[in-house]
């Protein structure tokens, strides 16, 4: 059997996911249960994101996939190929050219437009899960808007470390109501959750979909005396010289020498094309980078 339906999933499954997406958009930050299907890639490899993308893609879309900000990471390549094959969509590495972007762990550096859709792969959708393992209990907490446990945890961090010790998957409050896990993006990306694009979150194994419509109020949890701070490594990109982008750290020699480069490969390439060169960069050439 080789003849799969458009975007792999059958129509009834897509309708079920589409209904969940609409309820997610209508209740920003609330996790809508959905009957996640077993996909031909493992749970943990982005099955939630893949199902959301499958339900959202049209044949007219241009699709981009990033993992850790990069288009050429193996799993990004694998997911991009899956939709090239099953949905026949055009693909791109350029953020500006993409109409749908599936991502794992990053928000692109380039601001998204209102006609762009960002689909996140989510491992654990429940922001309270590591404070309370029971789904029955956390669902109750959300219904009662009982988020004291989360504030206690953040405050304990401060008393122990002098700072909030959460560096990624930093919890946010959406439209003043639901506390939401923004997926394991670095907290550097949190301010970008306030964006013009449509943000859809898919957790396959945990069977949850949630969403943030454009221009929705997303606030990173903090305290008046310990305000949220979006931080990154205190370096510039060694390839393109960017000082405003999130960086990957590489170990480049046996002595443990380090270099830093943009995690968003499209952003870095774009800057280098425009002539920006970092401390260890070379002038941009097609095919090489």
């Amino acid at each position: 059997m080789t003849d799969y339906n458009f975007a792999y999933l059958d129509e009834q499954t897509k309708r079920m996911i589409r209904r969940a997406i609409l309820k997610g958009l209508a209740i920003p930050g609330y996790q809508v249960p959905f009957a996640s299907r077993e996909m031909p890639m493992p749970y943990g490899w982005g099955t939630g994101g893949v199902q959301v993308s499958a339900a959202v893609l049209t044949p007219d879309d241009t699709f981009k996939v990033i993992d850790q900000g990069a288009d050429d990471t193996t799993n990004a390549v694998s997911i991009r190929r899956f939709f090239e094959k099953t949905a026949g969509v055009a693909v791109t590495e350029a953020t500006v050219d993409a109409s749908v972007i599936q991502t794992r762990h990053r928000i692109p550096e380039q601001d998204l437009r209102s006609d762009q859709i960002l689909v996140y792969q989510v491992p654990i959708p429940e922001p309270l899960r590591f404070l309370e393992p029971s789904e029955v209990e956390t669902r109750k907490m959300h219904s009662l808007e009982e988020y004291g446990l989360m504030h206690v945890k953040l405050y304990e961090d401060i008393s122990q470390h002098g700072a909030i010790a959460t560096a990624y998957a930093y919890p946010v409050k959406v439209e003043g109501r639901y506390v939401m896990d923004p997926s394991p993006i670095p907290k550097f990306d949190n301010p970008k959750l306030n964006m013009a694009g449509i943000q859809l979150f898919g957790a396959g194994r945990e069977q949850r979909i949630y969403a943030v419509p454009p221009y929705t109020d997303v606030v990173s949890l903090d305290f008046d005396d310990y305000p949220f701070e979006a931080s990154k490594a205190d370096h510039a990109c060694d390839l393109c010289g960017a000082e405003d982008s999130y960086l990957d750290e590489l170990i480049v020699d046996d002595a443990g020498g380090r270099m830093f480069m943009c995690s968003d490969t499209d952003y870095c390439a774009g800057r280098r094309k425009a002539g920006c060169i970092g401390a260890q960069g070379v002038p941009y050439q097609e095919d090489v980078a």
Partner: protein
Amino acid sequence: MQTTTLMGGFVNAPLDSARAFRQIMTAVAQPGIINDAVGATPPAPLSVAAGVVLLTLCDPDTPVFLTAEFDTDDVRAWITFHTGAPLVDAAKASFAVGSWGDLPITDFAIGTSEYPDRSATLIVEVASLNPEGAELRGPGIKGKATLSLPETAAFQQNTALFPLGLDFVFTCQNRLAALPRTTKVNAIKVS
């Protein structure tokens, strides 16, 4: 079975419904914008857009309520044949179709505090749909938007139920707009 029943569905369901869903989703994500909805030719009095929404979102898992105006043999047969959705009372419906004044809006499911998503989506057939009238604010809207709504008080009451509440899709010929429960509605005073 009448031929009208068999006709009027999507020509290519996977592609037509994908495109239609994009129009519905962006309308829900950005209340106030008006999108095209084409590809279905349902029997009167259903509008093209209402037909498109039904075909895109409904199936045997989504009970549908029809107001008396839409509860005709042709419409029932068309919905049953093309979607398999059971036709039910308002209280049991996931979706409903009707003109504004006829929809018994207090009868529909508004969700529960643990599952606010278990609420009905109402497809409201309107005679005209324009980007003018009531002022809309809230998620999906940069600043404010305007949309011709049949009234404002009911939508204000609905918003007050948040996170519970109903969600609305307004359909007019081959166009649609949406009003999720998050949108704050204000009547613009005509001075």
